[in-house]
């Protein structure tokens, strides 16, 4: 991972192993603290939400992307620009529902789970649930209420990791002026 050069600061390359280890330490500590996989999943989602509401501003400030006019544009921006910028991967967007309000992001590899194996006693743990919270928080700040969940996970034996995103509604309260 590196930060964009040309912002006045030298581009800093950080070791992605440190990132994987940090995330791993976080999840295992949560498991020790909560002892219940469901609670850990909830906490990861909450933490992800807090990250997402802040990350969206960073994303908008750096990428200069304008407002998306429909969910398909949103899906493309998330997959091709956001994931690329923050995790260095480009998931593919597939499995659109007939109404155009649900789609899947297929991740060939997930940097969060490099070197991770899920033990049997944590079979209902959603290890990368942080990502769901991040996506939910970020989209909420741009007036979209979405539901995000993992439907396939390489840690559980599936061939790919699949995140399903469903558009629930547009958030109408507190709209910025000019967006009605």
């Amino acid at each position, binding site marked *: 991972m590196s930060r964009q050069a040309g912002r006045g600061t030298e581009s800093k390359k950080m070791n992605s192993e440190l990132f994987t280890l940090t995330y791993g330490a976080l999840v295992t500590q949560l498991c020790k603290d909560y002892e219940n996989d469901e609670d850990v999943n909830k906490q990861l989602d909450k933490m992800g939400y807090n990250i997402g509401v802040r990350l969206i501003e960073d994303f908008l400030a*750096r990428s200069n992307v304008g*407002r998306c006019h429909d969910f398909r544009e949103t899906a493309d921006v998330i997959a091709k620009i956001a994931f690329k910028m923050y995790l260095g991967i480009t998931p593919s967007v597939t499995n659109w529902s007939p109404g155009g309000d649900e789609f899947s992001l297929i991740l060939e590899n997930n940097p969060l789970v490099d070197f991770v194996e899920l033990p049997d006693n944590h079979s209902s743990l959603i290890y990368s649930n942080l990502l769901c919270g991040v996506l939910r928080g970020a989209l909420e700040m741009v007036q979209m209420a979405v539901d995000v969940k993992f439907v396939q996970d390489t840690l559980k034996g599936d061939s790919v990791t699949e995140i399903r995103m469903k558009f629930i509604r547009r958030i109408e309260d507190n709209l910025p002026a*000019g967006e009605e």
Partner: protein
Amino acid sequence: MAIFSVYVVNKAGGLIYQLDHYAPRADSEKTFSYPLDLVLRLHDERVVVAFGQRDGIRVGHAVLAINGAEVNGRFTADGKDVLEFLSNPANYPVSIRFGRHRLSSNEKLMLASMFHSLFAIGSQLSPEVGSSGIEMLETDTFKLHCFQTLTGIKFMVLADPRQAGIDSLLRKIYEIYSDFALKNPFYSLEMPIRCELFDQNLKLALEVAEKAGPFGPGS
């Protein structure tokens, strides 16, 4: 070329950050003897000059300090009413400092909220659908530039009318906000920004923009 102030307004219209960057205007401090040849009157809880311009003291200037002690609205530092104090010959000769009144923080809060509402009116008045809000307000002494992010935060910069490169400055301020305010885990969203690093980096960015002068920062 100068950038006068920066305001950051949150989604609800509350002012969360304000910075004044201009050199203080020349205040005039003079010693007067009785009777005062300026006509003073009370206006908005402040004592202002109503008539009798001279020596750099203009109509509209407020009494800022008496005998070196700053006044508190219409009262002196020790609680006496300013107009009564100045009508008593026993208090002369007296040294009074006049100058343009600076906005108090409450006034800034109120003005920011007012601008937030006006910004929305701007988009409603538009004959076209989906117009943005007010992007620029121009007077003969300054231009106010406003940039609203997709998340509803507004960044406003008041600058000299000839200053260029304000658009890129607004984007830079957005980046600085997303870095030093948002990435500080102890900063809560929508609350007043009290982050040292944000202040420092913002001032640096303003200086860079000012140095670039009327041609804008080099790309």
